[in-house]
């Protein structure tokens, strides 16, 4: 492939790619995201390839391993184009039948279709499935059409057209103005306006020979998998956002900070960077514009606390990854003390969309102060779980009951965990809260990437103990309230769940949580009290049952759940 020398050529290349694709040719698209691979997608793909070879169908039938379309619960997911027939939980032994009955025979195999958990109704197409059609999939909707390891697939769908538009028609200042006007806010939780941050960095108060941008793809919340799956499923989209951002800010070096444990995510982003270099979207004189940029992958050493910005940058610099107190903004003194913009990958992923569709279009989606969509991972006790994308302003109830399909096995809903170990719990009575930065913050929650549903069989005291056990290991251990506060919270929770709780224990827990929230050094330490505080607020009766009656209402805490026989 030749290096693309100008923005105009991108459209030519796209047409050339499209001219090689026969839109009427059947293509079996199989999700090869981490979840579907774990469910056996690798064997299914091998079976398809073997069967196609055996039957000599190469000329009429393509296969494609794609990014995650979302319904991980029912993986491996197969979509057959051009009809868009959706098959779920496909196994290798189903493959000959899919080819003979659906591809050749043009009939649908009933047992592989989506079956609604409540009505028993079947759905043939993706758009008929409530899990999908209640979402607004602006960022992840293309995942099932894209092989994340093929830049041609991304280009075919109009990829890098936003970059072309920027380089052809926009100054860096205009790009920043557009992002500002769109109202795009950082997707990592605090929700700072992305355009303002970029502006600060472009006009940094310090003399700097170089500026950096960082894409934070370090997702450590237990149970959350939105960021890594998005990056894994469509890495070029994030990369395009980073290139546009670098142009706007004046950065010549950019980094993707990602955990080694997300092996496929790391592989896919590395492949994408290599391809972007080859096509001239990265490197020197990008598309003949005179703008240079290199993107490197920085592998983190593991550890939840590295998601905190000062710890993240310390880790990238090769120092111990622990937070520190500082009074300079990263946009003035960030990575290696140079002006730096650190944004979550979901923030970067929105950039090409905003450039293509315009700030006004983007500003119409969402609530007054929270614009666009938000990608979450939905998991726990719901009928359907996976990767979802919803417009800001959708209520948590709609997410749990309309998209997630409610609680399985006729059980009742107890709580929605929002924001991971630094977030909190939403009881039934608060489910009408919208996905909105201010609304969630006011409720003591955080805009984290993971939503976990708990049903009546979940013990809230036990769940808090789980999060604190996680944090006891993942805190860096530097400051007193976080290290020793968590230590003693856990000790008290162990006592309570083992039937040795005393009446003043809940007050002591509250004191520790209150002090930690105010006194801890970093956002992790301050947020670590979140699950405990919100469980004490909404599920105090469960603590009382454990402490006063020595009873675990959900029957989870073993020491309190023994049946006595006379």
């Amino acid at each position: 492939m030749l290096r693309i020398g100008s923005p105009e050529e991108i459209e030519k290349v796209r047409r050339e790619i499209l001219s090689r694709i026969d839109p009427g040719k059947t293509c079996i698209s199989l999700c090869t995201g981490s979840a579907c691979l774990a469910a056996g997608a690798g064997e299914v793909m091998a079976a398809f390839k073997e069967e196609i070879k055996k039957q000599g169908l190469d000329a009429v039938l393509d296969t494609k391993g794609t990014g995650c379309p979302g319904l991980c619960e029912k993986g491996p997911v197969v979509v057959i184009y051009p009809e868009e027939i959706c098959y779920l939980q496909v196994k290798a032994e189903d493959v000959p039948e899919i080819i003979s009955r659906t591809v050749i025979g043009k009939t649908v195999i009933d047992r592989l279709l989506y079956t609604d958990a409540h009505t028993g109704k079947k759905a043939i197409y993706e758009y008929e499935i409530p899990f999908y059609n209640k979402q607004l999939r602006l960022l992840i909707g293309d995942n099932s059409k894209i092989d994340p390891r093929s830049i041609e697939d991304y280009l075919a769908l109009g990829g890098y057209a936003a970059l072309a538009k920027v380089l052809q028609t926009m100054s860096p200042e205009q790009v920043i103005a557009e992002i500002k006007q769109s109202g795009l806010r950082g997707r990592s939780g605090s929700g700072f306006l992305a355009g303002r941050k970029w502006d600060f960095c472009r006009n940094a108060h310090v003399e700097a020979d170089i500026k950096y941008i960082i894409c934070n793809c370090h997702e450590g919340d237990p149970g959350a998998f939105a960021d890594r799956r998005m990056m894994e499923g469509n890495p070029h989209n994030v990369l395009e956002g980073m290139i546009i951002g670098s142009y706007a800010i004046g950065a010549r070096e950019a980094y993707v900070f990602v955990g080694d444990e997300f092996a496929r995510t790391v592989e896919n982003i590395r492949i994408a960077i290599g391809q972007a270099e080859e096509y001239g979207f990265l490197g020197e004189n990008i598309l003949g514009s005179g703008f240079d940029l290199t993107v490197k992958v920085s592998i983190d050493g593991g550890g939840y606390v590295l998601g905190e910005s000062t710890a993240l940058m310390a880790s990238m610099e090769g120092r111990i990854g622990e937070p520190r107190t500082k009074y300079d903004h990263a946009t003035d003194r960030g990575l290696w003390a140079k002006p730096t913009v650190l944004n979550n990958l979901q923030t970067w992923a929105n950039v090409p969309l905003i450039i293509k569709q315009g700030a006004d279009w983007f500003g119409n989606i969402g609530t007054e102060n929270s614009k666009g969509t938000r990608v979450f991972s939905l998991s726990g006790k719901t009928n359907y779980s996976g990767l979802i994308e919803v417009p800001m302003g959708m209520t948590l109830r709609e997410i749990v009951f309309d998209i997630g399909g409610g609680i399985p096995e006729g059980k009742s809903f107890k709580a929605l965990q929002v924001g991971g170990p630094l977030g909190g719990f939403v009881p039934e009575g608060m489910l009408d809260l919208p996905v909105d930065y201010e609304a969630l913050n006011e409720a003591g929650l955080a805009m984290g990437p993971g939503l976990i549903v708990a049903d009546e069989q979940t013990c809230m005291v036990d769940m808090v103990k789980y999060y604190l056990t996680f944090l006891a290991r993942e805190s860096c251990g530097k400051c007193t309230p976080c290290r020793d506060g968590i230590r003693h919270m856990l000790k008290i929770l162990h006592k309570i769940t083992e039937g040795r709780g005393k009446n003043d224990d809940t007050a002591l827990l509250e004191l520790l949580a209150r002090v930690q929230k105010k006194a801890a050094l970093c956002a992790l330490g301050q947020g670590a009290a979140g699950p405990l505080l919100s469980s004490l607020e909404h599920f105090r009766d469960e603590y009382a049952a454990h402490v006063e009656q020595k009873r675990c209402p959900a029957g989870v805490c073993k020491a309190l759940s023994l049946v006595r026989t006379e």
Partner: protein
Amino acid sequence: MGKVSLTIDNIKVEAEEGMTVVEAAYSAGIVIPTLCHHEKLKPYTACRLCLVEIESRGRVNLDTACSYPVKENLVVRTNSAEITEIRRTLLELMLSHAPESRELQDYAKEYGANKDRFAKEASFCIHCALCVRYCNEVKGLNAVHFIKSGVRREIAFDPELASRECWRCRECFELCPTEALQAAYVLTEALASAAPSFTQEPD
């Protein structure tokens, strides 16, 4: 260096630019409790005892006085009911490690901290990192450092360095607010585990 004037506990204080709030307060005879602060070492902000209320541009925040740079018109309040509760709880947490520490006991008296509030801990260390930072910043040796993370964080001596350097130094022991019991223990451990070739010439 220019001068800045700020208010600490309703007292006007003239300070040098570049000073921290703790330094400005000391210069005016106002004492803010500290444990991990040391004049020879960089601010570390870990013990959190020096948290004070800082009012700047109309916003009030809790921040560590040992690190906060003085600014013109800053308003600092070193005590409040909220701050007392925080300091008392922090002291109680630290006293679960080192109930005998003089320094902690003195502060405990001042803030009404109960040394038996929390269950006793096996390690004496309160993680002020004075030994670790002194060895790094002043001695340039890094013979003592932290290992592990979270609640398991603890100090440890590097056996090779310790057997070469720590015998004759041990200056860090004197800095320890908990009488260096933990340091003595882990140093002994390091020396015991040092390979013979580090400590003596072979026959």
